[in-house]
């Protein structure tokens, strides 16, 4: 139930006073309730769970984390030569 995959909001409208939208999950379009993300705009990315958008994905935070992790990757490569992983794994 919990494996929310990110989707892109392509349409926003109201049904019975409830904020709804169309979400594109890599080509599969589904309807979701947007009541909990009232600030949503077309083009935003969101994670949907049982038909409700839980929150919008923060583009800037996403980029910052990826950049941080990328740096670690570059650092790891440099270290990797002289310092072998210490764990007992393979």
């Amino acid at each position, binding site marked *: *139930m*919990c*494996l*929310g*995959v*990110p989707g*892109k909001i392509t349409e926003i409208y109201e049904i*019975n*006073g*409830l904020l709804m939208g169309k979400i594109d*999950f*890599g080509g599969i379009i*589904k309807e*979701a*309730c947007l*009541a*909990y*993300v*009232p600030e949503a705009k077309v083009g935003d*990315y969101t*994670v949907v*769970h*049982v*038909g*409700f958008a*839980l*929150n919008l*994905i*923060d*583009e800037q*935070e*996403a980029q*910052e*984390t*990826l950049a941080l*992790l*990328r740096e*670690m*990757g570059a*650092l*790891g*490569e440099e*270290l*990797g030569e002289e*310092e072998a*992983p*210490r*764990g*007992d*794994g393979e």
Partner: protein
Amino acid sequence: MKYLTEYRDAERVKPILEEIHRTVTRPWVLMEICGGQTHNLIRYGFDQLLPDKIELVHGPGCPVCVTPLELIDKALQIASRPDVIFASFGDMLRVPGSSKDLFQIKSEGGDVRVVYSPLDCLKIARENPDKEVVFFGVGFETTAPANAMAILQAHQQGIRNFSMLVSHVRVPPAIEALLTSPENRVQAFLAAGHVCTVMGTWEYEPLAERFKVPIVVTGFEPLDLAWGILRAIRQLEEGRAEVENAYERLVVPEGNIPAQKIINQVFESCDRKWRGVGLIPQSGWRLRPEFADYDAELRFDVGAIEVSESELCQAGLVLQGRLKPNECPAFGKECTPRTPLGAPMVSSEGACAAYYQYGRLAAEGAS
């Protein structure tokens, strides 16, 4: 796909795993709370890729697994009534009750329907005014905003032939129960990213402080999982016990305020029994008295229910991280996804199903 491909990129995950190997010096026991994370950890082989010093134990975050047997039996009774359309998430259909499951009720002629969202039930209720539509409202904090909204909408639209069999559970009281147990071995938690998307991280601060346990909010993709594990291991190695957020793109400390508002408007906290685990004080949500009209337990008098649990099933121990699924004697023998003895073998978030699906068939020795 944006926000997906990059988090599944093995080339990005590898350096983080290497950093974990470099960081670990002592044995540590980590628990991921969420069953969705359990599945991905096993699916992507984290149990094999991590240093042997890190042991992952799987937590109780599988809503289907912890829904109490009494309630499953109640659902079965309500679903077999001729005047009822019983709606549920698909996962619940094969969960074994004392003698049957919902699937069997359906094959015996019961009107049991799988819905994608609780809002679908309102449409079914409008289209079937002569029937009672009952929704099986199970789940953690992630599902509560949806279920609360369905109740509120039914109320506002004056839909009277709709009710909900509610069994909501919350993560923080479960963490507290695990940490207070004398058998506890868990030294750090990966908190469930989507639960925290709704609730934020503030509820975890007092737990981290009181029990001196690191709690790291973690997402679901391989890169997220590796990042969450690394941050938990760093805390353990450095002797810190803090709440950290490793899922920044979706989780903010205060959570989703509009969602929390609706949850609090519709639900109030209550003691809740967790299947296989027992009663955990204040670990559940039930409908507030103002919404008693929508409470299926009050609407349908199902009478006294006598429950009987499989004698072989060790689900309670599995859900508390005290037994690995493949250490259960029935695993893969009497109990398979086609012949489940317990809920963790049924659910897409159950640890037993994950071990079966991804081929962790024999209990690994000291390898």
